[in-house]
């Protein structure tokens, strides 16, 4: 039986957490002293490069700290940090990029190289409007932006517009990128320009043509570093078309020593949609650092009645709480799935999915909204998605399946 003392202590603990307000318990657990010097107390996150390279990075940071206004060194460090952020999904790296660019960060008109990186960091922090302001300025008629930086700005702008659901504007940018204006930069720009245009036309109802174009580009690319990325774009297109070649393409995109978070998450979703939960567990175990991957891992574990699921769910909840505490609302899509697939709380999931839809309109965002709306018994809440489908001609096998099944039931 529960003794009254236990009850008292529970009450008091609850009181300490609730009555006084403030932070929840987990952030203030009782600290401890490890038992021995040899006890491993922390596994550092995945690291990139050799010890020597990291040593060099550290030395470069020291040099910049001594003389913070060395523009080329600052730009180099910021670029490296952004590349690591992409691979590891660690927003601390974006902070490092910002720190390297500190002397120029708050300027209204920073040097073009800084401005481009600032836009990239802001885009990654889901501050899309601020990113677009910088990108538009870089591409303004008569701006002194070097051509190469303009090309990068154009491509980044297209991807921001794509996330926002402004696909026609994004496609126009990709077309400009493929125009004579950038011809001097050769295939380095032509290939991403064509791929970006193909992806956008693929989203807007011309999936077959896009598929053919991307296949051709992949053949051209051969073993170029862009091949993995092209495979990812093709895999996502194949998934939308309901084509099983998606699996091989995802696997090809993942054939790198340290696959990036986005690609792993996309392939995990493909597997989850097919209830191949065991493969998701194998794929993502060891990458729990990234919330997006921990989410998918937790879904797979819960579905396979794995006893470790509860711990993963608790960790995710604590991370969402921590993000809420710092006022970060950039993960509404993931939180919607958390509520829907891990907490069985469709009503909460729908609220997050709707908030996310106001900011992002990619197929994955559409899918989350439609699924949450159905689970919550409020199919009409997904109407904005169906409107986008009608307006753009978006074809997505997953959305089509839901639409067909709901027609069957009504």
């Amino acid at each position, binding site marked *: *039986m529960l*003794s009254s*003392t236990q*009850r*008292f*202590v529970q*009450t*008091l603990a609850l*009181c*300490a957490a609730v*009555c*006084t*307000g*403030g932070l929840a318990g*987990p952030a*203030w657990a*009782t*600290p401890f002293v490890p038992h021995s010097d*040899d*006890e*491993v*107390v*922390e*596994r*550092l996150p995945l690291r990139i490069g050799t010890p020597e390279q990291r040593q060099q990075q*550290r030395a470069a940071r020291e040099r910049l*700290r001594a003389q913070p206004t060395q523009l080329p060194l600052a730009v180099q460090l910021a*670029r490296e940090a952004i590349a690591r*952020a*992409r691979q590891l*999904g660690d*927003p*601390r790296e974006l*902070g490092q990029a910002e*720190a390297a660019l*500190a002397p120029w960060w708050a300027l209204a008109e920073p040097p073009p190289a800084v401005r*481009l990186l600032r836009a*990239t960091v802001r*885009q*990654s922090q*889901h501050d899309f409007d601020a990113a677009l302001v910088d990108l538009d300025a870089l591409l303004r008629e008569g701006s002194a932006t070097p051509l*190469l930086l303009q*090309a990068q700005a154009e*491509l*980044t702008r297209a*991807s921001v517009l794509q996330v926002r659901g402004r696909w026609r504007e994004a496609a126009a940018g990709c077309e400009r990128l493929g125009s004579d204006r950038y011809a001097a930069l050769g295939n*380095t*720009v032509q290939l*991403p320009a064509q791929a970006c245009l193909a992806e956008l036309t693929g989203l807007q109802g011309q999936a077959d043509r896009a598929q053919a174009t991307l296949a051709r580009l992949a053949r051209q690319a051969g073993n170029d570093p862009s091949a993995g990325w092209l495979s990812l774009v093709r895999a996502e297109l194949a998934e939308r078309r309901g084509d099983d070649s998606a699996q091989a393409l995802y696997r090809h995109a993942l054939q790198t020593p340290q696959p990036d*978070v*986005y690609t792993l998450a996309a392939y995990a979703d493909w597997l989850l949609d097919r209830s191949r939960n065991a493969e998701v567990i194998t794929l993502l175990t060891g990458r729990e650092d990234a919330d*997006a991957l921990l989410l998918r891992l937790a879904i797979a574990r819960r579905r396979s009645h794995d006893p470790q699921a509860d711990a993963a769910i608790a960790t995710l909840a604590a*991370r969402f709480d*921590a*993000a809420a*505490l*710092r006022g970060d609302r*950039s*993960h509404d899509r993931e939180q919607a799935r958390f509520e829907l697939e891990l907490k069985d709380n469709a009503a909460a999931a729908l609220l997050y999915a709707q908030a996310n839809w106001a900011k992002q309109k*990619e197929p994955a965002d559409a899918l989350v909204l439609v699924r949450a709306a159905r689970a919550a018994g409020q199919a009409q809440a997904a109407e904005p998605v169906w409107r986008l489908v009608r307006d753009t001609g978006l074809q997505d096998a997953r959305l089509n399946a839901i639409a067909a099944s709901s027609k069957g039931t009504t």
Partner: protein
Amino acid sequence: MKRLLHTLALAGLLLPMLAMAHKPSDAYLQLQVEGPHVEQRFDIALRDLDRELALDADDNGQLDWREVRTRWNDIAQLAQKGLALGADGQPCNPEALGTPQLDEHSDGRYAVLTRRWTCPANVHQLDVIYTLFAQTDPTHRGIVRVQHGTQSDTAVLMPATAAHRFEVATGEAPPAGFAGFVLEGMHHILIGTDHILFLLALLLPAVLVRTPARGWKAAPSLRPVLADVLRVVTAFTVAHSITLALAAFDVVNPPSRWVESIIAASVVLAALNNLYPVVREGRWKLTFVFGLVHGFGFASALKDIGLTKTGLALPLFGFNLGVELGQLAIVAIFFAGVWTLRDTRLYRGFGLRAGSAVITVLALGWLIERAFDLKLPLIS
């Protein structure tokens, strides 16, 4: 240059989902204000410290405790440079650091730096100047909780901003959270069966007097009965308040199994005393002794949840006040009932005996469960 473009172009296309991909860098700062002192607990992620200080001496991607412990001075220095406190316009002075400790947060282990700050006078406005990682990670945030009495304020601090000012209540008037503790205390006593039964066992015979010749007999007048009830209840209250406080402030900590067992035994004895009276006069003394144990019941369990001594006083007071109010309500209702029934044969002949017997059996069951660490199916 060509490779560079690729890296960036691809990064640009892939980045959109990254903002949530990973928990960003947060540090947790807890400041407990008491008079002119501020107790600090500062939790900083080991991975952030490794980036700043290259803690991983053998570069194997893992930190062992030696690598962290031997660099504790550097860690402390970094933390001290990142934090300054002021009270009412005057700087506060940091005192010596507590022992190196770690804690687990949702994204890994954190170094825990504890220390006391002393300000020139009692703190009314606390200024927190937070600059940790201002140079290296502008996305870092310090999540600060300032606690004073039962109240706490939380703020999310950006490293580069100016001082954040917390208003600290002076503590004369009990803050709003106080009422919550009182309610919780009342709730607790109303559901705390063993405490209630102890009281009831003591009160059952209070309305009767034992005569040498004819056993129990209804008490003739109210005044001496009330005085007796008052003595018993006061003894219980005073006793458990004393030990509850001693327990909460970590002065005495008897083992919980013993305490729980003795609580059960106290209920058995109080009920048995009604059936086979041993202690007749001055039952309040017996109540006082056992009341001490009831209060002690909280000792080990309080330690389990890691509540610190500081800042516990007011919640504890509120909680105890609630307990007393709830107790008073029970006593009043019960007393009114038995007072009217006292003259009936049913009560004298049956109520007292049957009630005491039931309480004895139930408490005996608890006693066996608690003393021998068993689970009995019928006692719930």
